[in-house]
């Protein structure tokens, strides 16, 4: 019985069994946002459940988006930065995994956002690293459910 549970769990982690992770994207620049969407649409185990171009929009949409994971850009327009939004989201949804992306080197934000509760940090400018990070975050999340 125990073995069977383990196998089911592994299948779950590998997304074998039809589970799809719902990804919410917070990115102000439409070109980048469309790029993320294009990436995620071609991944069978991922789907887009919402997009926001600002922190305020994200806060309005996320409660009903039923997101499994969030991709969050550090630089957002308006009064609330990506860092502010991360802080807010960790309070509202403590278990929601958030991948922070930024054009800045990891040294700037990497440690800080992880210590604030982000799932991880990737630097913009490497598409392969980005999609791999989203895949891993999604698999871990679905596996842990």
């Amino acid at each position: 019985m125990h073995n069977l549970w383990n196998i089911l769990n592994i299948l779950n982690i590998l997304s074998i069994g039809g589970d799809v992770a719902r990804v919410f994207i917070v990115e102000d620049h439409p070109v980048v946002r469309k790029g993320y969407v294009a990436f995620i649409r071609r991944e069978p185990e991922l789907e887009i459940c919402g997009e926001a171009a600002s922190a305020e929009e994200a806060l309005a949409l996320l409660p009903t988006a039923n997101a499994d994971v969030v991709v969050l850009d550090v630089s957002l327009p308006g009064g609330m930065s990506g860092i502010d939004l991360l802080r807010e989201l960790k309070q509202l949804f403590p278990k929601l995994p958030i991948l922070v992306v930024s054009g800045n080197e990891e040294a700037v934000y990497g440690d800080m956002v992880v210590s604030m509760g982000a799932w991880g940090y990737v630097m913009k400018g490497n598409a392969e690293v980005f999609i791999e990070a989203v895949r891993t975050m999604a698999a871990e999340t679905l596996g842990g459910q």
Partner: protein
Amino acid sequence: MEAEALSASVRLLLVEDDEIDRETVRRLLGDGYVVTDVATGKAALEEIGAVPPDAVLLDFRLPDMEGIDLIPYCVQSFVPVILLTGEDSPEVIVQAMQIGAQDYLVKGHIGRNALARAIDNAIEKVALRRDLAHQQAQLAQQALALERSNRQVRALASALTLAEQRERRRISQILHDHVQQMLYGIQMRIYLIGLDTPEEDKTYIQEHLTEMESLVEEAIQSTRTLTVELSPPVLQSEGLGAAFSWLANQMNRLYDLRVALELAQDYQLTSEDLRVLIFQLVRELLFNVVKHAYTNEARVVMCVEVDRFVVRVEDSGIGFDPKPLVEEQPHDSGGFGLYSIRERLALFSGEVTIVSQPGHGTRVTLSLPQEVALNAGVPE
């Protein structure tokens, strides 16, 4: 001869209560003077106030006051005074000369020529004194005007620096928020083309894709470097603490300088201009350590000391004599180094102090009044 020529138009005020003395003096003066006489101090003051005479002949003892009490009024109005005294009053003479009388004559021993000479000399002395005072006043005015222009020049220089900072920030922001994002978009699309192209077609386009990827990568790197050089993006959204951490990391990575940070807390500064300024000054000072100090360690301290917000950059390198730097002016060596730091800080009522000597490291302290630099409530 000279005395006669001058005396032609001279108007005298004779302040004398004794009628005999008055008549004696009038006789000695002859016809060359226009003489008005009064017998009291009060009348003399009124006369001086109404039409200041060219000179006053003043009896040392008047019925309503001491003659010398009139002297300060005369000095103030640039009216020469010659005291007429008795033989028995040397102390009055000394006092009168000290407070501004031009000359004295002892009654009973006054000669016609001596009187004329005394009057001419006194008028000339006071005229010189008045010219001097006038020139001094002009000089003082010129000094004031010069100081005003200097202040304007300083304010313009500072405004120019701030304008430059803002422009750098604006260009940096365009690069970061727009150009870089487009490049990321292009990069993703190139990657997606690679993924979505069937294997059999890849041979035709792979070479082009690889070339495009490398070009975009190079463009991203260039804009990143330029963005950071113009104004680090980290400074646009976070407090000084995060910016200093980033700077320390950069200095270590690019210049092998290990920067220890001692930040009492991440203070919230009153303006973005000031935050950017402090950051840029610290960066300039750390560059100085890299270039001149011959050490690979430095320390940045940020705290509040007494009632001043303090940011200090220290190193234990070779040090230098700061005196020539402290006296540096903007035209010296065409540089804006320390002068510029001083001027830029002065715009926010800040100061810079340098402690250094050859062989004993350098400590540069930037300090500003706490109420100018920091928001009330302090922590960010």
